[in-house]
């Protein structure tokens, strides 16, 4: 089992790189090249070995115990199909992020605050997936959070980044403590924290339910489940863009890995009702996440919110898998589970791509605010193409990969009538509706993102100066775009690669897909449903070129350029274009009034006054205002109240001692 050794070697190498990065970063340019080059190589190696494991001997599992970590336990490290898959996701992301950063990192103005933590962050994520006992799992989990926190704080002079880092760190620690409680429950008072022991132990339904809820709190807060998502849109954009890509595209997946590992692998089968919780949470998260994104005008924050949506989708299909699994319906369970993993892969691909694109825009224009961008398609032709591909893919449109996974999830949703419980029968279609809503809103959201950022006319001076980004960044984005298309047209191969994981975790798998006629995928049965990404893509290409050719024949190819039709007054100022907020206005009016208590305030100047009319949009983040603000306020109030105890006179303190003594004596006198 050399792969495990290779993986551990890679982790060690990453840590070593992190250590040498600190002194190196005195010479930024050199350090940037060396560090990112090194991480690029290491991650590539790790990806390769994990992939070979997943493809060749995925049914096996390699384990090894290192004499570190919890003394009487040691650090258990285990490589199985599930771990291998997530290692692929992590290290693929790491490889491409490093490649991207080779170019992007040159624009970094505080490299000494990024370079040491970047490899550590990657190492932490790898370790989480490899860990096979509670202690090393949580240790690497929190180490990952810590490294990413340091990266979020890289540009610490910006107060909003500091706030982001703070909220992030607190939420992360909350999540870890919840996981800690969960493992405490699983390990029992004897404290056998080894995953093998936990897997072997029998857990009562009560314990299983409690653990699942704790997992939803712990892993969910890291993954960004509503209402634990508040840190995510703050922290992800705050980091440098390649790190944002890793946090959004990969780290959330590590959280999902944690959920799968514990709930599906360690926990046995909990009560069916728990799957309802997961489903509902996932659906709400998907819909709310994308609604938040639609209200956003900061490009990177928009992407972060859309991450929340995708996490919701993944949790929906995990909930479906749980529902089927608890009702002993292996095939639909495998379908939902495979769909979830497929979407994990897809989201890691196109979200990284989109964040890279946002980073490219940021590095050439220095702007994240979409309302100051526009018309970039003329200045960054290549970036605009790959970003378009990413947008189509994330909007779940054929023939790209995003659609395949959502299609599979819908197929799983359509299996729900087989579920015996009324609750699920009624819940699942509703959640399906929520998912369809989320998908449509996602399309709207990315029409907005792409349209406002890349199309139209430049809105600011920063945009006019923009030019195409460097070669490394373009290469990284191109590879991702290609992968998006590839996974979209050849879904069967991916599903077959994922099958062993389902076998390992659920004990059931889908029928092998690669044997199907013309590479179409048939999750349940031919008569039931099937999809052939390749053919659809080919048909579209063929008919497009057909029509193109035909038109070339009949019509005149004449083209005349002229000013746009401006309804009388020509050449309005570019700012008169539809802004991000303006584009979202119809949807804001339909959904926002309920979700965000959104109000548009228009201040019209009096007649004769030439001052411009001003539009102010008032949004309230209900979740923050209803949950977090009161909590923080309560703690503050309590501390103010208690702080009076710091301000007593000596006599006051003495009387405290005195009262304590007398109370204890009284207790003694009464109780004994």
């Amino acid at each position, binding site marked *: 089992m050399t792969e495990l050794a290779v993986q551990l070697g890679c982790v060690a190498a990453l840590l070593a790189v992190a250590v040498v990065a600190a002194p190196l970063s005195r010479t930024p340019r050199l350090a940037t090249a060396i560090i990112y080059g090194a991480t690029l190589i290491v991650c590539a190696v790790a990806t390769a070995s994990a992939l070979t494991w997943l493809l060749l001997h995925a049914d096996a599992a390699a384990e090894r115990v290192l004499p570190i970590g919890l003394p009487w336990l040691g650090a258990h490290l285990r490589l199985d199909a599930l771990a291998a898959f997530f290692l692929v996701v992590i290290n693929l992301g790491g490889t491409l992020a490093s490649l991207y950063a080779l170019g992007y990192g040159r624009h970094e103005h505080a490299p000494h605050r990024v370079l040491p933590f970047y490899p550590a962050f990657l190492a932490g994520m790898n370790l989480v997936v490899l860990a096979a006992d509670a202690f090393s799992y949580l240790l690497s989990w929190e180490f990952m959070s810590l490294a990413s926190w340091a990266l979020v704080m890289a540009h610490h002079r910006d107060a909003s980044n500091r706030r982001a880092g703070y909220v992030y760190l607190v939420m992360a620690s909350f999540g870890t403590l919840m996981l800690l409680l969960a493992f405490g429950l699983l390990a029992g008072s004897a404290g056998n924290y080894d995953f093998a022991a936990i897997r072997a132990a029998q857990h009562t339904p009560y314990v299983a339910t409690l653990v699942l809820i704790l997992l939803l709190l712990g892993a969910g807060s890291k993954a960004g489940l509503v209402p634990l998502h508040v840190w995510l849109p703050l922290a992800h954009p705050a980091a440098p863009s390649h790190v944002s890509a890793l946090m959004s595209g990969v780290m959330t997946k590590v959280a999902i890995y944690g959920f799968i590992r514990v709930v599906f692998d360690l926990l046995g089968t909990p009560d069916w009702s728990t799957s309802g919780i997961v489903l509902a949470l996932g659906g709400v998260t998907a819909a709310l996440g994308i609604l938040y994104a639609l209200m956003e005008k900061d490009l990177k924050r928009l992407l972060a919110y859309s991450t929340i949506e995708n996490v919701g989708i993944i949790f929906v299909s995990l909930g479906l898998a749980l529902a089927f699994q608890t009702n002993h319906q292996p095939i639909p369970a495998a379908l939902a589970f495979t769909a979830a993993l497929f979407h994990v892969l897809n989201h890691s691909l196109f979200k990284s791509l989109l964040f890279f694109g946002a980073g490219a825009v940021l590095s050439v224009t220095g702007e994240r605010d979409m309302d100051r961008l526009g018309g970039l398609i003329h200045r960054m032709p290549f970036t605009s193409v790959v970003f378009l591909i990413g947008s189509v893919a994330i909007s779940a449109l054929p023939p790209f990969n995003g659609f395949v996974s959502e299609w599979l999830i819908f197929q799983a949703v359509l299996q729900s009538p087989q579920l015996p419980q009324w609750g699920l029968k009624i819940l699942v279609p509703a959640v399906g509706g929520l998912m369809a809503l989320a998908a449509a809103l996602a399309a709207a959201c990315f029409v907005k993102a792409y349209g406002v950022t890349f199309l139209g006319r430049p809105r600011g001076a920063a945009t006019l100066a923009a030019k195409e980004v460097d070669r490394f960044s373009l290469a990284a984005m191109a590879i991702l775009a290609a992968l998006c298309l590839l996974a979209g047209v050849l879904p069967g191969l991916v599903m077959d690669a994922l099958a062993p994981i389902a076998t390992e975790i659920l004990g059931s798998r889908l029928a092998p897909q690669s044997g199907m006629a013309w590479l179409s995928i048939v999750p349940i049965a031919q008569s039931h449903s099937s999809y052939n990404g390749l053919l659809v893509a080919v048909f579209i290409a063929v008919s497009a070129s057909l029509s193109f050719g035909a038109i070339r024949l009949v019509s005149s190819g004449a083209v005349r350029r002229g000013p746009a039709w401006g309804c009388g007054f020509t050449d309005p100022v570019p700012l008169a274009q539809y802004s991000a907020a303006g584009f979202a206005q119809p949807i804001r009016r339909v959904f926002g009034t309920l979700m965000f208590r959104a109000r548009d305030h228009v201040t019209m100047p009096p007649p004769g006054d030439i001052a411009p009319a001003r539009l102010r949009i008032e949004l309230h983040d209900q979740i923050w205002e209803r949950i977090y603000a009161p909590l923080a306020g309560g703690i503050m109030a309590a501390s103010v109240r208690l*702080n009076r105890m*710091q*301000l*007593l*006179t*000596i*006599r006051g303190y*003495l*009387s405290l*001692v*005195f009262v304590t*003594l*007398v109370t204890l*004596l*009284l207790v*003694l*006198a009464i109780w*004994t």
Partner: protein
Amino acid sequence: MHGLAFDISHSLAGGLVLVSFMMLYQDRLTSLLNVFALHAVMLSLSVAWQALIQDAPHLYVTAAIALLFKAIIIPVALRRIVYKLGIHRDIETVVGIGPTMLAGMGLVALSLALMLRVTADADALAREDLAFALSVVLLGLLFMVTRRNAVSQVVGFMSLENGLILAATGAKGMPLVVEISVAFSVLIAFIVIGIVLFRIRERFDSVDVSQLDVSRGERT
């Protein structure tokens, strides 16, 4: 003989408690110091009696220390300080005398209730003594709590120490180390308090220094 011995030591210890109550009753520092001297005298008497009936000569030393330091030197010195600070007139009880008295009663009752549970094989003398000692300690603490001024806090603290000594001497055959440590700690206590008071006097008038919190930014 034993009955008599018991009664005497018992009455002496009881007397100590009584004097503690008298201290609670005082609201002028000067008179308080007098009462404290009396307190010390009572203590040294009972210690001496213990030395007699336990024929433990080393206890005489303790008695002597108590008499010398607590009954004479310290009251005199404190009187000096009091006059120097010019606070020999002001009334500085926090709670009214009446409530304080009631609280004191409660404390004595509590200490009796606690000590009388002790199984009787610890001999009666010890039990009674402990009960009284405990009440003296608690009363001393109560005194410190109900007085505002640093000097009276010192006095209260020393009356508390007296209670300790009473207990220690009541504990038959307790090794010398304890008495020495008691005297030792009292000595240290006195010296340090003296220094600190002196310095405090030197810096600013009020001994109650809570307004420092403001300068320190803790009170906001």
